[in-house]
Every structure is written in C-alpha cells, then in structure tokens.
C-alpha cells in the first residue's frame, strides 16, 4: 500500500515550499522517524520526517524545486510492494495489509467524554479525519462504570504556562479596568424557532446554532454602538471599523479565545461556517497566533453548563465582554399574566473608562431587540 508524502505547511501564510535536499532516494528503505528531505520556506529549514516505514518508490519534486503545500512530493511503498505488484498476485501471496497510517490521538473532548462515561477511548472506532476518535463517536456509548470523582491533587501544584498566563492577565484586568455589569433577560422562542426553520428549509447550508445567531446579533449591535467596539488606549479611545469577535473556548486545562474577524461583513451563514471552523481548530490546538489576536469584543458562553447568569472579566484593551447564560424555560410576566417562555440572561461587563451605564444599556437593548426579532439576523448580509 503506497503512502503519499506531501509538502508540509510550516506557517499559516505559506503557499509553497522548496525542497532543498533529499536525504532519501528512490529505492531507499525508510524507517518511521527518518529524515526524508529538508524543506525551506522563508528563513526556516525544516527536516521532513517519515511518518511510516517503507521504501521510496517515487520522488516527484527535484532538489531546488518548489511545490504547493499539500502537493505530493514523494511516494512511500511497502517493503515488498514492487515485487508483489509485478506478480499481480498481491491478494493471493500476501494478506492485504492496512496502511500503517497512524491514527491521530482522540480529541480532548472525546477523551473527556470517554472518561465521563468510563469507556476506554482506545476501544472506540473513530469517525473523524484518518479515523480520529471525536466526541460524536463517544457520546452514544453507555456508561460502563460509575463515575469516579477524581481525587484532588494534594499539596502545591505548579500551574501550566497557559493557566499562569491567564492568572496574570486576569489579575491585571480586574485590578486596572474599572468594571461594571449590566444584565438583561432575552426571550429566545423566536430565535429558536428561526433556527429550527432554517434547518428544516435548508436556506442556509451550514448548521446554525443559537451561538451563531448570538454572534450575528452582537456584530449588528456593535455596528450600531461603535463605542462598545472601541478599545482603551492610553487615556484615549481607539475605534475600530472591523468587528472582530473573540469566542472564549474552554480546552483541556486552559482557555483559548479564537477571534472571528470582519464580522461586520459576514452573513449569518458565513458566521456559522467561520465559528465552526475556529471551534474545531481550537479543540485540535492547531491555531495560528494570528487567529487569536485583534479581537475587539468577546463573548463567553457558559450556557451549556447550566449557568443562569455570570459576569466575565474584560479582556483588555477591549471595552466589553458578554457573558451568556443558559437558555431555559422560565416563568415570566406578560400583559398581567404569568407565561412560560424560553429565556437567556446576558451580562455585559463594561470598562467604565470607555463606556458609561447608558451606553452599555443601549447596546444591550439593541442586542435584545435583535434576538427577539431575529429575522434581521438572516436578512442582513453584513
């Protein structure tokens, strides 16, 4: 079984790379981990390692030539492939072997889900890329053992680099930024109905979630209230035309805030696609640093953990962060009677140096209006 060796991507903006040297040639035997070639981009020279063992059966790009990222640059065959193939008796003379392509480790979410269910993650067949076990493979599994409450680690535990950074940054923000908080309750029945009808009619090909509707509504509200999208800048304000919304995403032992850029130009469908891709990348830990910089506003959603409402710490120099609680049925008074409606509580943390109470409140009012009349969210192209 032949395996293609492709041009690796060394940087986010890299379109092609140059093969500066082949260390293995056609006919050479290769063991996984051997260096096949050196690839150059810009001022970096990367040694390309073989992921599998085999024999080099073809080299497609010569030394000094360039090839686009992902292009096949060489082919690795099984040890005896050449001979067997010539006989044409592969299936008789040797049992068909699976390619030695290593299955990537399960995603962190899948691992957590498996742990919660007491299922051995290694025993699950993966449906992700190259057989990777993803959360949806684990979720249908039955709990096989009672949940064991993990013992709390004893003594002093050093923080991971990421948690330490979060600790420092949050302490700084809470100390230096004068926060105030505004909470509002939003009726979500219309938005949920809209989401369902979008799914049924297929008007939007990308699955739209309540979070996507929320991002879109926040983007529109920010456009109408640009001060909330501004940044504190040394006793002044920096206004931004671009609306770049960071979406706080919990990962194993930490937190990442991938930024969805240019939301002012994105339709609901484009937001749904962009948010899904960022989420997948965040969970896989494969991000360019660029994708986490340049945010002008942040959304933090703990609704999936049954939190009714909370207040988030601002991510400086941004002027605000929106903390989103769970959507659930609540008794509300309407026209003198008690009715049951699905509502969501959102809390806007504001930097008082940038915003005063009324400015924050007007933004929140606009957001509530958009979510309760969500047709605007689909109609607006940007």
């Amino acid at each position, binding site marked *: 079984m032949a395996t293609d060796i492709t041009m690796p991507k060394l940087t986010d903006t890299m379109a092609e790379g140059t093969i500066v040297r082949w260390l293995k040639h056609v006919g050479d035997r290769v063991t996984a981990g051997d*260096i096949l070639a050196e690839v150059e981009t*810009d001022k970096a020279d*990367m040694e390309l390692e073989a992921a599998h063992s085999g024999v080099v059966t073809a080299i497609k790009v010569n030394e000094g030539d360039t090839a686009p990222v992902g292009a096949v640059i060489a082919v690795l065959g099984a040890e005896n492939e050449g001979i067997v193939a010539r006989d044409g008796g592969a299936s008789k003379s040797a049992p068909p072997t699976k390619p030695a392509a290593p299955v990537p480790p399960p995603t962190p979410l899948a691992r957590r889900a498996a742990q919660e269910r007491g299922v051995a993650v290694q025993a699950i067949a993966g449906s992700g890329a190259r057989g990777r076990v993803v959360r949806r493979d684990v979720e249908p599994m039955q709990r096989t053992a009672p949940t064991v409450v993990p013992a709390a680690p004893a003594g002093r535990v050093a923080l991971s680099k990421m948690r330490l950074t979060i600790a420092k940054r949050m302490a700084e923000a809470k100390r230096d930024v004068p926060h105030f908080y505004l909470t509002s309750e939003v009726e979500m029945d219309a938005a949920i109905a809209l989401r369902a009808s979008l799914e049924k009619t297929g008007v939007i090909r990308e699955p739209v979630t309540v979070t996507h509707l929320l991002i879109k509504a926040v983007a529109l509200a920010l456009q109408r209230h640009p001060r909330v999208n501004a940044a504190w800048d040394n006793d002044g304000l920096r206004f931004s035309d671009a609306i770049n919304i960071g979406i706080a995403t919990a990962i194993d032992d930490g937190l*990442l805030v991938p930024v969805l850029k240019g939301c002012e130009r994105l339709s609901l469908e484009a937001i749904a696609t962009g948010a899904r891709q960022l989420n997948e990348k965040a969970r896989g830990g494969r991000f*360019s640093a*660029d994708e986490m910089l340049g945010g002008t506003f942040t959304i933090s959603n703990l609704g999936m953990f049954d939190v009714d409402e909370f207040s988030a710490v601002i991510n400086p120099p941004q002027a605000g962060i929106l903390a989103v609680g769970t959507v659930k049925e609540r008794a509300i008074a309407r026209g003198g009677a008690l009715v049951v409606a699905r509502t969501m509580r959102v809390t806007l943390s504001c930097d008082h140096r940038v915003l005063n109470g009324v400015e924050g409140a007007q933004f929140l009012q606009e957001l509530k209006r958009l979510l309760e009349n969500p047709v605007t969210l689909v109609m607006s192209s940007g």
Partner: protein
Amino acid sequence: MTLSVRQLGRIGYAEALALQEELVIERMADRVPDQLLLLEHDPVYTLGRGADAADLRGAEAQFAVPVFRVSRGGGVTFHGPGQLVAYPIIKLTGVRRDVRWYLQRLEDVVIRSCAALDVAAHRHPSGTGVWVGDAKIASIGIGLRRWVTFHGLALNITTDLAYFRSIVPCRLPGLRVSSLAELLPNAPTLEQVAKVVACEFNDRFALCAMEEVAA
C-alpha cells in the same frame, strides 16, 4: 515558561553546532527544558541549505575563514568576534507551530533589545531580519527538527564588517550590514547585550503566551 539560558562565551562553530544537535535531540525527548544559547563565534562563513556558494565571492579564501553549510534557512552569512549569536532550542507546540510566527518573535526580540540600547531598529520589506535604516544589523535563520528549533539570530555589536562587504549576505546583493558600534558613540559589551537579549527573549515569549490566551 521554563527557559534555561546558557552563556557559552567564545566557542568554535563546529563545537556549537554539535551542542545544538545534541540539545535538539534532548529537547525532542523532553529531557531538557527550552534553552537559549548565547555565544560568540570565531570567524566563520555559513551557508543555509539552499544558499548559493557563489555568494561567498571567494571571501573564505581572502580571509582564510572556514565555511559550513548547515540546516538552516537563508543565504550566506558571517559570524565572528563582536557578534552576539543566540540559538534558541525551543519546542514549538500548539499554536506556535508556525514558522513565520516564530521568526517574527525573534525579530521582535532584536528590535526590543535594540530599543533598550537606544537604537531604533525595525523590520524591512526585503526579508526576515532586523534593520536600522537601510542597513541590516541582525540576521535570522533557523532550522526545525520535529518542531524543535535550532540556529537562530546574530546581532552585530563590534563585528568587523569587512567580512560582510566581501560577500552577498542573505541573498541580497548590495546589502549594507551595520553594527551597534557603528550606530552608538559607546558600544555596549557583548555581555551587556546578551543580558538584554536574554531578558527580551524571556519577556517576548512569555508575552506571546499571554496574547494567545485571554478572557
């Protein structure tokens, strides 16, 4: 961030290269933390893997200086006394698995170090590295093995620039190379610059971790 900074003083190129190779293997296996090697070389010309040997223009014979072709990106360059060389042996993980991100952080380290020494340095459209005006003051070229970095940056302090004038440095014909001594009335010592670079390096890489995570 655990970063072990090692001041190696004046060290031959071959010896430093062997040390890097060894540390890369140790770092890959997580037997050592991230390292920053700070040192100064005896005169040597080095060629990146894809460099054109013609760019040496016979300088190696003229100055009787050894030549090494090594696994880093970039063209021909010179190392010698009076030049601070920094070799970070760092494992790039997660979001840092981006060559350009890393190269730009190295540029930032030099730019901020220069700023701390009262020299206004900057990036330049002609490529990776750090310039003051139209003259290049620091060269950058790295290698990666399983996303562990080696090679790094070279910042001229009191380097004899004649070694550069005889070659085509960094594949840029006509490039003028400068040094801190050329720009400052009282050039700092290599030890002083090493201290600044180590601080900025630590700071810059810790700071970037901060930029990556937030909220």
